């Protein structure tokens, strides 16, 4: 009898140890992957950003904060930051408006809705690079289908990617085409999970559809909107494929975003030190903006009323 409690705690202890081992075992792949793919490259990149390493002109020399000072004093950096912000804000706003609108329209279950929902989600299923190359062909001013349609309607052909503002607008449109379904998906999920009572109460109180949307649906959807906005903003901030394929940052530098700028420096010019400093600055900006967004907006809390 005296031994029994001891045996029980022994079993408990070994069970705990086993459980510990099991958790460790289960976490190991994730930790190894995170360390190998995120932590190590980050530390290496951070270290490189304090050197003047150019792959083709070795060796790397320690340069202190030189890269960061150069960066903050170049008009190219500020220009790219401006382009990045315009691109991010415009495309995310446009996508949210379209995604939200479509989600609300598709929420009413009618016969055509499942098919429509599948069609609207298609852009997400297409390999991005293949879609962007197709857009490149469609934007082609002399042989592309967009101008063909415009001219068919008696309108003048457009230089879609040839002038600064137009190129930026075209990039925003492609990004919207590709990512509005993402917002649609999250919001549709949110709508499906909303409680029915507030809507019934609104109906009984005689609220118009617009009032119901503004005062009931939208506040309840806030957490979902917040997640969608956050994901999309971070993603749009570092968009690469669309810009690389369609404009390479041109004409001039009118569509050179920070990510394009970092790519040109680090990969095209093999200037790893300077390129890394651009990437680190991007990381800092994203972290700060995300934190501000999460703390200040209180979007992650559900409205009381």
């Amino acid at each position, binding site marked *: 009898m005296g031994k029994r409690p001891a045996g029980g705690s022994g079993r408990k202890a070994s069970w705990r140890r086993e459980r510990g081992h099991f958790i460790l075992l289960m976490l190991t792949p994730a930790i190894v992957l995170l360390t190998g793919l995120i932590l190590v490259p980050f530390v290496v990149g951070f270290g490189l950003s304090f050197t003047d390493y150019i792959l083709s002109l070795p060796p790397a020399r320690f340069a202190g904060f030189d890269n960061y000072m150069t960066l903050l004093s170049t008009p190219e950096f500020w220009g790219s930051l401006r382009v990045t912000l315009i691109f991010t804000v415009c495309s995310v706003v446009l996508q949210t408006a379209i995604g939200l609108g479509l989600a609300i329209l598709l929420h009413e279950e009618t016969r055509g809705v499942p098919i429509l929902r599948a069609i609207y989600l298609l852009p997400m299923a297409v390999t991005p690079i293949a879609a962007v190359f197709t857009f490149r062909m469609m934007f082609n001013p002399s042989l592309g289908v967009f101008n063909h349609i415009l001219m068919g309607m008696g309108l003048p052909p457009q230089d879609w*990617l040839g002038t600064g503002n137009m190129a930026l607008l075209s990039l925003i449109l492609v990004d919207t085409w590709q990512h509005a379904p993402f917002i649609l998906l999250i919001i549709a999920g949110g709508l499906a999970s909303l409680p029915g009572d507030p809507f019934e109460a609104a109906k009984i109180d005689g609220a118009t559809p617009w009032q119901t949307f503004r005062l009931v649906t939208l506040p309840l959807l806030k957490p979902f909107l917040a997640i969608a906005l956050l994901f999309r903003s971070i993603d749009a901030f570092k968009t690469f494929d669309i810009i690389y394929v369609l404009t390479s940052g041109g004409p001039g530098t009118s569509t050179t975003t920070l990510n394009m700028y970092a790519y040109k420096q680090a990969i095209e010019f093999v200037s790893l030190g300077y390129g890394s400093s651009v990437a680190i600055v991007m990381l800092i900006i994203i972290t700060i903006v995300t934190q501000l967004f999460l703390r200040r907006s209180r979007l992650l809390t559900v409205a009381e009323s």
Partner: protein
Amino acid sequence: MTDRNKERFVLSRRAFTRSAFMAGTALAMPAIIGRSAFAQGGAGLEAYTSANVDWKRHAGTKIMVGGATHPWSNAVTPFIPQFTELTGIEVETDFRSETEFLTALPIKLASGSPTPDVFMYLAYGQGITAGWLEPLNAYYENKDLVDPAWYDEADILKSAREYPLWQNGERYAFAITAEAQTLYVNRGYLKEKGLDTPKTFDELLAAARALKSNDVAGIAMRAKAAGNATFPLTGFIYSYGGELVRDGRVAYDSPEAIAAVEMFTTLLREAGPIGVSNYDWYEALNDFMQGASAITSDTSNFATDISNPQKSKVAADAGFALFPTTGSRPAIPNMSCWQAAVNSKSNNKEAAFLFLLWATSKATSLQTSARGLATTRVSAWESEGFRSAFGQEAAQAALANLHNADAELAKRARFHPQSPQILNELAVGVSLALSGSETAEKAMKDAAAKANAQLRK
């Protein structure tokens, strides 16, 4: 990707059986493919064994050849079994899209990877200062490796012979293709307007203006704001007497270079298609082949596609001409060679050298040129096989333009250790001048100042 996976092959019993089967097949392949390749190209192994070269000295080794999916890799690959039969050296190839290959290669080489043993290469100066390329003079002088009489360097085009020659007299690569800027005109359109093929830039401008209509652009050339899109513009700058780089510093802000940029941007602004400021070679080539532009100027390699009636609507109308002049100076079209180098960290350097020696030899060039590849060999350029694959007139024009080109000028720009920055700023400057937001003079002065500020002293 399958080639990559092979590296991580773990040998189990099943895998062993499978690889034994594959090895058996591979051993049999040279006999099968090799024979058919010889039949097509007209060269047997005797063309190589007659050389005083110890081909078998590295039999049993295996080398990896890295490169871009390109006419060169397409033309050489079918003949690789012949090399294996000749030398006993096995060859694994890893060819990817040009952009992917060129982006990944510097990172791989900088990490000290011993593979690929042989690789296609463009940014020669970068590779030399970084120490990635094996110096080859000692190999050329090794009598067991090279039989000078058989290899016959005098048969290599002068510009291609001079291309890999570095300032210190050392060679770090073999030139494997030769390209020169050529003028392409649509004879049908010219005839409708009663025009001749333009010989000077002023005639070119007049013709392009006259040919421009709502449906057809007078001229289309690549002018995108990316370093590699500066190829056509560079020929204009050289022919006006300008340079991209002088004494290691950027020099495209000289009055001559500015005049060239002025002509280039006027041509495209007044007679180009809409959206030309975003044109890469792909758009320039397609527009011409579809008859959407009447004139273009770019690498001589365009000829293969333009003359192919299956790809090109204008195959019958296309004319291939000399690059224009200012009227007072000789034309200096831009030129370029793809090169192939031996990895300085490779474990099989001699085997790699033998591969390049074989690939650039007279006999191999004769075989690959019959598939339309613009090799570096005069004998291959003159061969009947090449002329019929590439087109008689196209070959003549390309050869004449190659003859007019100045390898030294081209090398100074492209082999600068920071050549990507130099070309990028040029492209951005031209893009601004083309859009009309800045004058050619201001755009070029700003671009040169920006580029020079980035160069490491």
